[in-house]
């Protein structure tokens, strides 16, 4: 248990971003083995056996997702989702910054398993430096014969195209990503048909997260069975957790699944800062429901966290100390969704605007109790009614915080100012 370095093993190695150094530490061995030891079918079986689940947030089993592609329909496409935009999430950036070739190798392994000849890396617009880095690495790998016609002399051909988004959260949703990649407004598509049947350019398409793909070289080299014994029964392998908020050592930590959250907080993150106590934390990024100190003993396991009413999501841990105003945090998150709503469906487009208006007035202490109930009601009118999960998740944090910290929310009503901040100011100066 505890820290287990797999994806991050070589982080910090001088020059790891170059092909030469990456290959010196064993890079592209996974691709070589995949091409020589596996057929596409046995490779998919190996990934199924590994129990690898998607690291983008939904946690869908990767091998199963691959299995949905219809047979004999070509061309097919593979997209790496590097549109990491979840508030509090920065693990994919670390994976690209520190070890870009590991991602490219994973992408090529997946491309081989899926018999894809054109793979895309869709990277968010704000990751400008990372896009340039990936483009350089792709060129390097192409020059070395790892990308392009006849990869490593295997007869399999695959091109890799790095595509920068324009900075929209919604483009992390796989169908919006596909729309954006095709050159349209990035907006989610009606499902079904799912991308596995009709995705990019109307062809079967798989969209996988950066971390998911980065796992593949290790699964190929060490075997699915080895990977599966890391972590827990239903959450295999390690995960990168991006820890931020009121902690002493914020950063990205690779942890075996099943480790208690408290261990992550105390040992890796160095505990809550300024010797304060923890008030709440968010286990999966801005979309996910708030958890309380009593949940710290939960294992880092997708199902255990789901049972507690939240989700590990994309692995973004945001810890909040005792001085935090939950209304203020809710307001900031609601503002994020209001700003990022694509405008396609009415409940999200208008609902996030209504929510934001109410939260600002609540935070300023100008909301009435009746209007606070309106907030709960409109969240109910949004949750589950929107076109895609963006609108649904725009209500999750605020609703869970309202439930867990109802007194705090109600204390804001008519207070004329934030009561928590006022109290915290006294605490700090005392």
């Amino acid at each position, binding site marked *: 248990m505890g820290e287990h370095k797999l994806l991050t093993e070589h982080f910090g190695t001088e020059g790891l971003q170059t092909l030469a150094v990456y290959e010196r530490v064993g890079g592209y061995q996974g691709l070589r083995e995949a091409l020589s030891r596996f057929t596409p079918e046995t490779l998919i079986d190996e990934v199924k056996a590994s129990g690898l689940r998607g690291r983008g947030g939904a946690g869908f089993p990767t091998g199963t997702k691959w299995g949905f592609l219809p047979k004999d329909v070509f061309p097919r496409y593979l997209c790496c989702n590097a549109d990491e935009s979840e508030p509090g999430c920065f693990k994919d950036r670390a994976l690209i910054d520190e070890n870009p070739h590991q991602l490219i190798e994973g992408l090529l392994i997946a491309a081989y398993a899926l018999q894809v000849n054109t793979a895309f890396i869709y990277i968010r617009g704000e990751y400008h430096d990372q896009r340039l880095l990936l483009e350089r690495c792709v060129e390097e790998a192409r020059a070395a014969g790892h990308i392009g016609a006849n990869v490593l002399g295997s007869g399999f051909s695959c091109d890799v195209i790095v595509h920068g988004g324009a900075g*929209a959260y919604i483009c992390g949703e796989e169908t919006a990503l596909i729309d954006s990649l095709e050159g349209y*407004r990035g907006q989610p598509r*009606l499902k079904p048909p799912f991308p596995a049947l009709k995705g990019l350019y109307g062809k079967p398409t798989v969209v996988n997260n950066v971390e998911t793909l980065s796992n593949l070289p290790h699964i190929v080299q060490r075997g699915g069975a080895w990977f599966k014994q890391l972590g827990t029964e239903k959450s295999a392998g390690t995960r990168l957790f991006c820890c931020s908020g009121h902690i002493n050592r914020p950063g990205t930590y690779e942890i075996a699944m099943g480790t208690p959250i408290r261990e992550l907080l105390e040992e890796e993150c160095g505990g809550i800062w300024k010797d304060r106590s923890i008030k709440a934390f968010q286990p999966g990024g801005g979309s996910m429901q708030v958890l309380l100190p009593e949940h710290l003993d939960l294992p880092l396991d997708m199902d255990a966290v789901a049972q507690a009413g939240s989700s590990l999501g994309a692995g973004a841990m945001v810890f909040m100390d005792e001085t935090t105003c939950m209304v203020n945090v809710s307001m900031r998150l609601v503002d994020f969704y*209001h*700003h*990022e*709503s*694509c*405008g*396609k*469906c*009415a*409940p999200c*487009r*208008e*609902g*996030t*605007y*209504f929510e934001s*208006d109410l939260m600002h007035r609540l935070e300023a202490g100008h909301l009435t109790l009746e*209007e606070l109930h*309106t907030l709960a*009601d*409109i969240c*109910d*009118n*949004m949750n*589950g*009614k*929107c*076109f895609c999960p963006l609108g649904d998740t725009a209500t999750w944090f605020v609703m869970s915080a309202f439930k867990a910290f109802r007194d705090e929310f109600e204390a804001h009503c008519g207070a004329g100012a934030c009561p928590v901040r006022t109290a915290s100011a006294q605490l700090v100066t005392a």
Partner: protein
Amino acid sequence: MAADTTPPAAPEDGLVGITIDGRTARVAKGTLVTDASAILGIHIPVYCAHPKMDPVAVCRMCLVHVEKMPKLQPACATPVSEGMVVSTERADVAKTREGVLEFLLLNHPLDCPVCDRGGECDLQDFAFRYGPQASRFPITEKVHFNKAVPLSDRIELDQERCILCWRCTRYYDEITGEKELVLQERGVHTLVNTFEGKPLTSAFQGNLPEICPVGALTNRKYRFKARPWDLQRTKGVCPTCSYGCNINIDSRDFEIKRFASRDNPLVDDMWLCDRGRDSGPSWNNVERIRRPVLRDATGSREVSVSEAVAAAARSLREVRERHGPSSIAVLGSAENTNEEIWLLQRLARTALETPHLDHQLEAFPDIGPEEHALGIAEIEQCAAVIVLGDEPEREAPVLTLRLFKAQTKRGVAIRRVVAQATRSLVGELPAEGLIGLIADETNREHATALAGELSRSHQVRRMTVTRGVNGRGAKDLGMLPNSGPGYTAVDQAGKAGRHILEASAAGLITGLVVMGGSVWSASVTPLLERVAAALEVLVVIDTRPGPLSRAATVLIPGHAIFEKGGTVTNMEGRVQRVRPALPPATQTPSETRILSALAAELGAAGWPGDHLLINRELVTAVPAYARAGNGGRALFEAAVRA
């Protein structure tokens, strides 16, 4: 014994069983829940869904509960499946509808009292039926947009009223393919605008305000002209071309305020072109002939209609006595109804006994029904369609939309080639399936030649775009010098339209009866002026003044097509009713009654004057019209030739 709880097996009829709010039906596989509910008489409110477009499920108004589904489902995008149980009455569905309406009204200006759409607005209607009674959102927080954005000289957009249902952008993507409207910005600031801010140029813009479920897109020509509840609505047929689009004529205070589409999936598929749509209100300002006039060398005087009819009969009899029946000719037009055509050709052939009759200027040798075999909706069933020249689509613009639909939704290969195309110019055609061949009347000879070439290897069906709202009816019913009613042979072929006029100018024809000649283009005006100067007797029955009416020895006003009853036949042979939408602009009787009176004065008594009675006579004589009934196609098995 325990009761058998297994449900009875579904019959294998290719249909699926569905239960909505306790009512069951068996509907075709793939039917959407919204359509299935309509079959069951259950109302599901929609904004973004549109019967002619693919579902997008963005408005979320149609969310319903489907058993075994964790979340409410958009009925507009959910196909039925066997045993599906849907509820539209549950409390969560009702609350969701109320919630969605609250969201849609959040930034809506609520300016219904000054909105053109008030009274026929889905937002207004559903808000009353399903919406919250009061707003919980502070009015000061509303997002404001531009309220009057001219998108072109025809369309104005109120961006505040827009509920972003995407119908207009999808219309341009899916129906016309012109992609002139786009969405800009995002989130609550999303708005509809023209691509790159350029004015719309489409020839089908008038459909936009009709598909808009609210008052965001309005017609600049109709804006602020009437409230929907003040309008009187009459079913009609667009009079602008021979495509025969079904319309609603909306009038108020004896003026046509607008033409609205009336969906006929076999003809217009609910789309009108702007030329047709704009033609309605333009009738309000047309100069009309209002009183019967007799004119001789000494001058002109207004008379009663019976005096005018008697004078016409007297003068025509005199001409016949002096110069023989062949010195008389009769000209109708493609604007006449079938009933008028029926009496007019009968007048020419039996009362005046002249072979010289026509409804157009050009001569059509060897005319036959085979050039009208292809139906409009059948275009979608063709393997390939060849369009000769760009005239067919210029003549009948809505044809373009049908061709686009056939191409994009049915995979029909559309070949647009020059009018003189030969087999080699058409290129490769699918080996199997029906080939459609479309040409206008000026290219009927090219079409005949090409059809002959193609029919050696393919099954070819032709469509000829006739001119005038009833050009097809006039041909079917024998208003031709070389073909009798139902394309029957005639004993003696007479002169065609232009020859009649030339013979009149040359003094060979001395008496001419013209009904509806004011539609002829300005290019024949010099000829008409020579005709007017040369004729001894010129009887004109018309709605609008023209070179002939100004010189007519007997002038009798006619009724415009919106002022009378009857039938017209569109280019594919579809016989459709027209009904009076306005009282006539004159106090004289309709053309059919005038023709029957004229026949009586000429000694042929007992002709019906009422269009329904004439129609009864007509369908007896032309069985294809009896089979067509009202709204069906007149199909002639083969031309009967002597």
